[in-house]
Structure formats: C-alpha cells, structure tokens
C-alpha cells in the first residue's frame, strides 16, 4: 500500500504522459474505423469493379482491363476529353478574371467594398448545383429573361452548349479564385513595388519581374483547384444540359443507372477510376504549390 502511494508520488509526470498517450489512439480510432467502412469499402469496390467483368450467361467474374480500355474509347473518351476541356477553359478564364477582380478590390481605398466582395465570394463560391443551373436557365435559357428581351435565340445563342456551361461555371469559379488569390495579393508588399520603382522599373517591369513570379505558385495552385472543382461538378450540368454536352460525370450517371445500355456499371466504375486518377494528379500538383506560396505569405 505504502509502496504504491510513494510510486505515484514520485513519478506523476510519467503516469500523466502514459495516460495522455493512450486516449490519443483511442479517440482517433472511431474516425479511422468510420472512414475505412464509409469511404474505404466503396473505394475498394470501385477499384475492384473497374477491373472485373461479369459473364452474363454463367455469372462468373474475371479480372480484366477491358473496362478501362472501354472507358478510354468512343463516347466515353469523348466525354472525358469534353470534361477536361470544359474544366481547363473555365478554370483558365476564372483564374484571369478572378485575379483582376481581386486586384481591383485589394488595391481599393474602400474597406467596405473589399469586405462586401469577399463575403459575396464566400457565398457565391458555394452557390453551385441545381439552383445555379435554374438561375441561369431563367436568365439565358430558351425562355430566359435576357434571351426573350434581347432576342438572343435569333443571334444563335444557346445556353445548353459548351460556352453556355463555361459562363455558368464561371459564376462559382471566379468567387473561388478571388478567395484563393486575395491572401497572396495581400502578401505583395508595397515596399517591393516602391523598391522596384526607385530602381527605375516601369509598372510592366514590376509585374513581370516581381509581382507575377511571387504570385505564380498561388495562381497555379488556384487554377488547379478550380480545375478540380469544375471537373467534379455534376449537378449543374445535369440540371442544365441533360446530355447535349458530353461530360464524364453525366456519362457515369447514365451508365450507373443503366439509362443508355444495360451492363455498363463496371465501365462506369472504370470511368470513375479515370476521374480519381485525374483528380489525384490535380491534388499532387496543388499541394506543393500551396506550400510554396505559403512561404511568401508568412
């Protein structure tokens, strides 16, 4: 009895440390278990399904790369390329326009303008999906307000096209870019501009040799983030264009639900795997860029 008491008295630090370390693992365990079941199992099912085919007659399954080959051919490949092109074009436009807007706001004398634009960006960056599609259908769709009043249909305008989708995607991509790039623009110190000017640099030279090189990691990182966001978008396109623009997300949805052809579920899984690989590539580019840009903003 005395022995245990003295041991507790002598070594409280060690016992506290031991007590602390055990709950560390225990508290994280439910999270890990949950992710393994809710995320790991579907992910493995997707991976497994992408590499298997089921013989309709015998019901036997065999491993193959036929699904992946199929997913990179014909209509599926067109859709994959369509998605990449749409995401790249909208992300590029949103990067340029977002940078201009953010720069206009950051260098403004009016503090209220800056707060208003940043708050609005936070809201609009989350305004995707079905409501966004319907707002644009009401504006620029076949019977939309602007289409009717300006007679746009006669001028060959259609919202249900590649460029129509670009215009809609910009609505949430530009605010996302403003949110991403504003901290980087804030990090451009006015001393750098003054130093460049004192050394006789013009405005263009300042941007060419100081501004853009410092901003480049943030800009590229922002572009990649926007690309991934546009690439994964499904709801907006589904509610707006149906299948008149070939997109990989729409193809996957059709193939899962067996809308077009029966028995294409595993090709849908292969297409999903293609998407994951592209999105993974995007993240692999984004993370190092983000770390690099963080160095300048510290």
């Amino acid at each position: 009895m005395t022995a245990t008491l003295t041991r507790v008295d002598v070594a409280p630090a060690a016992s506290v440390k031991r007590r602390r370390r055990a709950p560390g693992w225990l508290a994280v365990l439910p999270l890990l278990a949950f992710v393994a079941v809710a995320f790991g199992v579907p992910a493995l099912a997707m991976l497994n399904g992408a590499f298997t085919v089921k013989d309709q007659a015998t019901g036997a399954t065999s491993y193959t790369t036929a699904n992946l080959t199929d997913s990179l051919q014909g209509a599926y490949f067109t859709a994959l390329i369509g998605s990449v092109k749409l995401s790249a074009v909208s992300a590029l436009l949103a990067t340029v326009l977002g940078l201009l807007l953010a720069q206009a706001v950051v260098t403004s004398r009016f503090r209220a303008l800056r707060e208003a634009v940043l708050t609005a960006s936070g809201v609009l960056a989350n305004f995707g999906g079905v409501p966004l599609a319907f707002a644009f259908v009401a504006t620029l769709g076949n019977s939309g307000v602007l289409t009717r009043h300006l007679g746009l249909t006669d001028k060959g305008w259609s919202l249900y096209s590649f460029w129509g989708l670009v215009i809609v995607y910009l609505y949430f991509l530009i605010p996302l870019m403003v949110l991403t790039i504003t901290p980087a623009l804030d990090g451009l110190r006015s001393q750098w501009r003054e130093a460049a000017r004192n050394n006789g640099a013009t405005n263009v030279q300042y941007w060419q040799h100081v501004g853009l090189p410092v901003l480049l990691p943030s800009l590229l990182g922002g572009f990649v983030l926007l690309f991934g966001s546009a690439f994964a978008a499904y709801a907006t396109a589904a509610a707006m264009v149906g299948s008149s623009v070939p997109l990989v997300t729409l193809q996957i949805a059709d193939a899962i639900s067996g809308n077009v052809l029966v028995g294409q579920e595993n090709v849908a899984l292969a297409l999903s795997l293609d998407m994951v690989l592209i999105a993974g590539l995007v993240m692999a580019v984004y993370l190092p860029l983000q770390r690099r840009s963080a160095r300048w903003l510290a």
Partner: protein
Amino acid sequence: MARLNLWRWAVLAFAGVYFLVPLAASVIFTVDVPGEGITFDAYGEIVGADGFLPGLVLSLELGAATIAVVLLLMVPAMVALRLGAPRLRPIVEVICSLPLVVPPIAFVAGISTVLKWGPEHLSRTPLFQTFVAIQNPDFPVVLVLAYVVMALPFVHRALDAGLRAIDVRTLVEAARSCGASPVQALVTAVLPNLRGALLNASFLTLALVLGEFTVAQILGYQPFAVWIYSVGGSQAQLSVAVSVLSLLVTWALLLALAGLGGRSRTAPRG
C-alpha cells in the same frame, strides 16, 4: 493614377453586371410570367407544392444527423491529436483530404456497387438486414455516411484553425488538475473555446447537405436539391423561385456565420 482608377471601375462594373444580372433576371422570371403580368404566385405556391416539405424536412434531418456524427468523430480525434500522438496527425490530415480526390460521382458509383452486394451475395447473412436498414427511404442512413465522408475536409480545416488559436494542452491540464475527468475537460474547458470553429464546421456541413444533389439523386432519394430538380421540368417558375430563396437562405446562413465568428473571435479577449 486616373488610368488606374478607370481600369478598376471597368473590372468592378463588369463583375457587378455578371454577378447581379442572373439574380435579378431570376427574380423577374418568377414574378413576370408571360401572359399573366406581374404575379407573386410562384412564391405562394412553394409551401403547398407537392414534395416540398418532405424534401426540406429530409434534408434538414440529414443535415442534423451529419453534423452530429461528423463532430462526434472529429472533435475528440482532433483534440487528442493536439494533446499527443503527433505521428498520427499527418495520417488524419491525409485521410480527411482523401474525399477531395474522389469526386462525388465516383464516390457514389462505389457506394451503389457496394449496395448491390446486399441482394447479390449477402441475402442469407445477418448483414443483409443492415443493408436494408441503411437504405430505409424514410431516413436513408447511407446518405449520412456519404455526407460525413464528404464533409471531412471542411470540418478538418475548420477545427484545425480553431484548435490552432487556443492552447488545448494548458486548458486540459488545468481542468484535469481541478479534478475533471477527460470527458469533462473536453466538454467544459475545450469545447466552449472552440465555439466559433464548431459553428463554422456545422454551417459548412449544413450548406453541403442542403445543396447536395449527386449522391442522393443517383441512389434514388428525394431530399431538397433533388426535389428542385424534379419540379424544374414541369414548373419552371416554381423551381426558379425556390432556387432564389435557397440562395437567400444560404446567404443569410453564411452572413450569420460571419457575424457569430467575428464576435466569438473577439469575445475571449474582451
């Protein structure tokens, strides 16, 4: 300098037109019906519309359940990681970023494959009942599972920012030396200091669940966003009116969040 200002106002004017015109046009679209003149019927019809209330209630229930589960999983884990187990920290960070690499449509393709195992392989095992239960149309637990996974990146970021701002170790040690149990220390000492981060995480999760369309539609459930989609074909005015309202509600939620966040950030210092 004058040239610079001109350039700035051109950019701002362009942005103003681009971002405000669709909103204004949507409102005009709902109240100025061709052949009927100005009418506010579309907004009056919303509450009585078929499927509106069940869809909204389902979305709110899913939102509440998702917030509860994701916070119960994440808060103890993140606090524990702050206190110790530094080697686990990067693992949890990677795990919480994984959903960003898997687009929702790819994720739901995997989920629907797993759900098909139920009738195909497991019909004689007790697991089959679980599969049936999580797909209950009155309250599809499978959607909560999916939404929790999709919310992990946002919740991780929000909680991480909140925990960075406070000294968790000192708080817990102070509570513990006053005789609090680990759970008491968490609830009475750490959580009140995390109020802003918890609210932030909850609002982001709620916004995610209310707007989520992909997973619910593919799995065949009809929460709010899927309901808007389904009325879009037949009742254009109604669907646009609901879209406008849902934007206003999101706006109000996020402004409330900004207000609350601002106050909770200054409160401890005052």
